[in-house]
């Protein structure tokens, strides 16, 4: 428990001090949201239509961009090796690090997403559905991203490779996330069913990803 808290605390402090963590995640998210209408044109009703999808894509890219370094620093400076020498299994270490990644990226983004949605003319009735679906979905995204980061940690230029590996896994999260975000618009049944599936997927990821990450990290330390 003490190890757990120590690691979580350290990672949160580091996220906060280095590059501003939360601040920059939010900043990036914001910027993608800005680019969308610039790229697509200022048509209000068009924007409204693509708003939930746009928000989800922005969330996803934000999480992805910040993910490739979840383990990189610890790998480079030898911390990862010392981390294997405590009582905490490497799988739990991976889970804690994924969790702190979520706390500093997905969670704050899910909270501000609906606000930014106004920039895209988002339907106000969608605020809470989107926030809920994003909170749930982004946990899964963080854990997946951390799996991707672990799988590429030994490669210098993992950045794009992470995306390539992880994005296909993101797709189901996104699809159900978006349909869970639609609130009552496409019928209450549809969205609550989607929310159910999203929870299921997230659960599976929460269990599987730390094992995968742990195994990958061990392999790279060889």
């Amino acid at each position: 428990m003490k190890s757990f808290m120590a690691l979580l605390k350290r990672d949160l402090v580091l996220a906060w001090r280095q590059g501003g963590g939360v601040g920059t995640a939010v900043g990036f998210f914001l910027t993608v949201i800005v680019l969308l209408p610039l790229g697509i044109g200022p048509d209000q009703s068009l924007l409204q239509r693509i708003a939930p999808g746009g928000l989800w894509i922005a969330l996803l890219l934000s999480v992805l961009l910040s993910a490739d370094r979840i383990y990189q620093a610890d790998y480079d400076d030898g911390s990862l090796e010392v981390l294997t020498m405590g009582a905490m299994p490497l799988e739990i270490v991976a889970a804690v690090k994924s969790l702190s990644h979520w706390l500093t990226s997905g969670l704050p983004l899910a909270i501000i997403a609906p606000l930014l949605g106004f920039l895209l003319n988002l339907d106000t009735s969608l605020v809470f559905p989107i926030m809920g679906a994003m909170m749930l979905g982004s946990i899964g995204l963080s854990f997946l991203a951390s799996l991707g980061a672990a799988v590429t940690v030994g490669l210098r230029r993992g950045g794009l490779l992470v995306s390539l590996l992880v994005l296909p896994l993101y797709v189901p999260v996104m699809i159900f996330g978006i349909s869970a975000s639609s609130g009552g618009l496409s019928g209450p049944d549809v969205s609550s069913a989607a929310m159910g599936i999203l929870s299921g997927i997230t659960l599976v990821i929460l269990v599987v990803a730390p094992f995968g990450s742990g195994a990958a990290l061990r392999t790279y330390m060889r």
Partner: protein
Amino acid sequence: MDSSFDLINSMLYIVGMKLTGKALSCERGGRQVFDGLDFSVESGGMLELRGPNGAGKTSLLRMIAGLNEPARGEFEIQEGDNEVNLAQICHFIAHQEAFKPALTVAENLQFWADFLSGSDDKADISVALEAFSMEPLAELSAALLSAGQKRRLALGRLAMIKRPIWLLDEPTVGLDKKSVGQLQSLMRQHLDEDGIIIATTHIDLGMEGAKVFDFATLPERADHGMYDDADLEEGML
């Protein structure tokens, strides 16, 4: 988790602990580094690993620390007992110093203290600071340290958290005279408390009574690559 730690802590006081490596063989990146290596160290004993660059000294330490697996051979910590999790009763001080430049010296030490001690009794970073005269550096960002100061930060773990086996990879590298003296007295104290030290080095560590194992004395390595030697001669490469 905590119960396993009480066990570990108590192990420190088992007089007569003996770490043995039997017929160890090491492969890295598909190449064989050494083969048929035997060693043993007893409580209160120190083993110095010497030998040319690339002989496999660091690799041996990493094996003991559980970071690499031996291709063949095994470790025993007590007569007949080879199931112990060595990683959790070892300190491994590698070339990489395992600290975060964004944290202060004190914060770095505190993190490892909390993470590695695990149990509820508080590991005290002031012990580490004192052991290597780092008190004035405590509140400084670790990014600003000089080479030797970084090394002292890493060595601080030894003083702060009690573990019976120390694996030190060229520990005196970068240290000034005074710090080398401090490290030596720390090592002596550890040996007096029935600990075990295995250290690689190219220069004299100034620890009299240490057993020396020279990798140069190992039998000629037979390289088991992917190809037979015959292939090489035939020029199949």
